[in-house]
């Protein structure tokens, strides 16, 4: 396997084979992990412009600096009213990946575990953290076993710096939310909490905690080795670097791909075998069409893009946001022509409503109301009042909860009403279309 450094070629994160890289293979491919001072590391990450790959796309350097500063402040004797213990800060590597349809973190952790573990070590060095948790979904015990193996291998080789505990996280959609995860690790519930204070200032057990997606930590490990300039050799500024995306749905070759940020959507989906031009001919989605009709970008809290119209949309946080969708955890779900986008949206909204924590009034009441309205739109004959109410709900939800669930649900609904406007008119005139009727019969 060729070493990765000094090249602007992909793949960077994934080994290019389906097998797991053991520690030796990992070191052969990537070289040793240099021990750099914390200040240097943070500066390098800032210069690289790395953003979080878990969904929020928050600048990683800023978060790292915030945790480092909070940890330094907590360590000063006069500032801390708690007894001074060794634990100044914690790292939480978030591999819970609760987004349905996202598999990138699982694939990354399975194939390049040492890259993520390197990232944890780098983050610990940069923040002065004394302990890390690597959080995985509870329904992947085999993956957890593999990670524990990898951690043990590092310990045997003398390559481990900070103790890493593999933690199986149960639960649903909100389980991977930053503050919910911190709450769980602190022995509390899996409910998001109100910020401020952010986990960077007060996280697990009240200590400054860096919560970072597993993929982000992998990028961190590469930046620590090869530097910010190398990181920026791929990608379209200001969003630099590469990202893992999960392509699912009506594509010949679904799976996890690595792509430079800013690559046009059409180019990314072509890697999965989907081509905008050519392919089979088709008319509207309610005719005997074969072509995919839309792409859901950014997961259930992202947005729809019409296909093939959106083939030029750059796959980046800013590019997708401008197009009315989102990068989110990098999921691209392709909707086949034989499906009804409104029905799919209704089902997703119903599922999202079921996942709500029930803490915040607007979401507790508003999200099920939006799901109900969309169910009427998709599976009954939408009345103008229903459409008006749905529209009103999409404006009542954003920014009024403690987490992104209501915002994302509203965004999804708005994009669906825009992208599937033609279907909406058809439903208003004729009631549910055949694909919608089929979808209504399927189990949720």
């Amino acid at each position: 396997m060729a070493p990765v450094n000094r090249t602007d070629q992909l793949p960077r994160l994934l080994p290019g084979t389906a097998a797991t890289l053991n520690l030796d293979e990992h070191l052969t491919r990537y070289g040793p992990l240099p021990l750099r001072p914390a200040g240097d590391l943070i500066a390098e990450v800032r210069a690289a412009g790395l953003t979080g790959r878990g969904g929020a796309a928050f600048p990683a350097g800023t978060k790292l600096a915030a945790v480092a500063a909070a940890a330094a402040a907590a360590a000063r004797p006069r500032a801390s009213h708690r007894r001074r213990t060794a634990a100044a800060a914690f790292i939480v590597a978030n591999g819970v990946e609760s987004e349905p349809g996202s598999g990138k973190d699982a694939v990354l952790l399975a194939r390049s575990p040492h890259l993520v573990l390197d990232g944890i070590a780098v983050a610990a060095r940069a923040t002065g953290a004394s302990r890390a948790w690597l959080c995985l979904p509870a329904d992947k015990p085999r993956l957890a076993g593999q990670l524990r193996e990898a951690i043990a291998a590092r310990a045997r080789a003398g390559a481990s710096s900070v103790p890493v505990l593999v933690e199986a996280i149960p639960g649903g959609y909100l389980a991977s939310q930053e503050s919910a995860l911190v709450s769980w690790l602190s022995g509390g519930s899996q409910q998001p909490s109100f910020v401020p204070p952010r986990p960077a200032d007060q996280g697990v057990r009240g200590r400054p905690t860096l919560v970072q997606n597993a993929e982000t930590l992998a990028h961190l490990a590469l930046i620590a080795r090869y530097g910010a300039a190398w990181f920026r050799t791929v990608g379209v500024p200001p969003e630099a670097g590469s990202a893992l995306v999960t392509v699912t749905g009506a594509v010949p070759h679904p799976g996890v791909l690595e792509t430079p940020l800013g690559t046009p959507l059409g180019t990314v989906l072509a890697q999965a075998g989907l081509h905008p031009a050519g392919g089979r001919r088709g008319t509207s989605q309610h005719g005997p069409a074969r072509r995919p009709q839309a792409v859901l970008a950014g997961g259930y809290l992202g947005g729809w893009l019409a296909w093939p119209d959106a083939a030029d949309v750059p796959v980046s946080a800013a590019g997708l946001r401008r197009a009315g969708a989102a990068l989110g955890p990098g999921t691209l779900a392709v909707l086949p022509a034989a499906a009804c986008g409104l029905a799919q949206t209704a089902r997703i909204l119903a599922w999202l409503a079921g996942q709500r924590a029930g803490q915040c009034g607007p979401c507790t009441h508003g999200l099920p109301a939006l799901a109900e309205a969309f169910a009427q739109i998709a599976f009954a004959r939408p009345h103008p009042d229903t459409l008006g109410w749905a529209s009103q709900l999409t404006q009542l939800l954003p920014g009024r909860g403690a987490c992104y669930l209501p915002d994302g649900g509203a965004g999804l609904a708005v994009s669906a009403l825009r992208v599937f406007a033609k279907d909406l008119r058809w439903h208003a005139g004729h009631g549910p279309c055949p694909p919608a009727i089929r979808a209504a019969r399927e189990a949720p």
Partner: protein
Amino acid sequence: MSDWLRVNPIACEAHGVCAELLPELITLDPWGYPIVAPGPVPPALASHARRAVAACPTLALLLHHEDGATS
């Protein structure tokens, strides 16, 4: 020096006292939860805003001051 109003949505239990005391900036949604007008609190309404913050039964209404302090 501008102040910013914010609601802690977890603490809020829809008592609606804030909307009564600061109707210029706070309205209630169909379920009784507050919708705060965006932007800083106009200086003329600052004392009313402070009163609304103090009157919230669950201390869910917060006033962020520009210097970082919160009430």
